[in-house]
């Protein structure tokens, strides 16, 4: 019969030939073979403290499959060094890397929450917009509070526009005062007035 069983079942495979200690894995991150780098990046998920090495590799990694695994491992590690590295990626000129970092941070509510206010107060308005993008699906109870703070204080119209759109979806009656304030602050900006009115209408409907 042409359908055959494997000579050896995959779950009976022998142990790996090389010892996978954390120090060797960090060295393997710079191996010329992308397959070796990818496996090293994956196995480093079991090595707390390896975020720094992963972030450093991410900055120079050109192979998309290795980059993706590094980001997944950083998300799994989810420590302060991993988050700091992802924030660094959000400042990159590489749009793909920025988006990958934003997507990764959406999965790290506990690690991102302590630095969210700093991100939302960053001098760079683009970074503040990316921070609001993270809030879009960050599973954290303070999302609405942070959005309200943005529309109450942020001087940049594009940051407020991004925040008010999201607030229209997730805001409660507690956001109404902030929305009226926003309209007053940007009274001459038709889009903000329109978006704030829409958000107010949606909240009041509920």
């Amino acid at each position, binding site marked *: *019969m*042409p*359908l*055959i*069983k*494997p000579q050896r*079942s*995959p*779950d009976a*495979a022998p142990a*790996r030939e090389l010892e996978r200690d954390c120090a060797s894995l960090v060295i393997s991150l710079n191996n010329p073979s*992308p*397959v070796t780098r*990818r*496996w090293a990046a*994956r*196995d480093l*998920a079991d090595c707390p403290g390896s975020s720094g090495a992963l972030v450093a590799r991410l900055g120079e990694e*050109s*192979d*998309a*499959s290795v980059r*993706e*695994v590094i980001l*997944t491992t950083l*998300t*799994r590690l989810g420590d302060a060094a991993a988050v700091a590295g992802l924030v660094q990626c959000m400042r990159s000129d590489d749009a793909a890397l920025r988006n990958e970092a934003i997507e990764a941070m*959406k*999965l790290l*509510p*506990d690690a991102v929450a302590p630095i969210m206010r700093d991100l939302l107060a960053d001098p760079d308005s683009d970074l503040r917009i990316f921070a609001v993008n993270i809030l879009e*699906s*960050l*599973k*954290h*109870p303070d*999302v*609405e509070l942070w959005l309200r703070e943005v529309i109450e204080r942020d001087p940049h119209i594009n940051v407020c526009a991004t925040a008010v759109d999201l607030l229209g*979806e*997730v805001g*409660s009656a507690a956001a109404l005062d902030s929305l009226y304030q926003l309209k007053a602050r940007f009274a001459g900006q038709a889009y903000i007035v329109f978006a704030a009115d829409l958000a107010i209408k949606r909240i009041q409907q*509920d």
Partner: protein
Amino acid sequence: MPAPSISEEDFHKFREYFYRKTGIQYEVSKRYFVDKRLLERMAATDNALFRSYFTMLRFQASGEELQVLTNLMTVNETYFFREEYQFKCLVDSIMPHLVEKKRDQTTLRIWVIPSSSGEEPYSIAIYLLEHWADIHNYDVEIVASDIDTTILTQARRGLYSDRSIGQLPLPLLQKYFRKSRDGYQISDELRGAVEFTRVNLSEPADTRPYRNFDVVFCRNLLIYFDDLSRKTAAETFYDALKPGGFICLGHSESMSRISSLYKVVKFPQAIVYQKPTERQP
């Protein structure tokens, strides 16, 4: 106080969100199905308003409610020849494509995960034997894995109910099954053709030995995973496949929303995903 309800705007908002999170899309014609389950979960979680329930769904730290709702919204069932168009795709497009690129007579390898009670891997075996002309020119290995050891025992046993075999054409039922008092017993020939193994897809130590597959079938499993587990699974399959190998997902699942590692391939019968043959820049 009026009874809780789902407005049209709520439905569309939910539909878009659920699609983004799970890849499952509900047409307007499924409105009753969706509303019924949403109202059920609103009641169970003490949310009188859709808005408050939706906020909880989106921002609950544990993601537990999204998981409960996903389980409710999906129908977890398997039977022989389920989503048959993908088996047609396997024999009419994928296998011929793989053979065309092959430079040797080495075995073609297929990994089915989850195996569940065996209907899917046995369907693939039957389909290859019945519909792939080259089956006599190549050896094919089918490895089927599941996390659940009870279901694996059931799969190895190969005894099925009327419902499981309901979609099988009668000639195939007569050819590969024997009617017994307890149900339909699959032939020893087929039982001997599929290797069943226990694997936890989220455990790297389990999946590491799974390499050099030409085709992976992973249908209707990733919809139950959270985002991070989906990404990890996609990366696991990437290393399990040979360059140029294919992965088939369930009809409502899309690899493009999980990972950018794969190339989308539109065959006439189905959309599948391919591990690139060359290194990506």
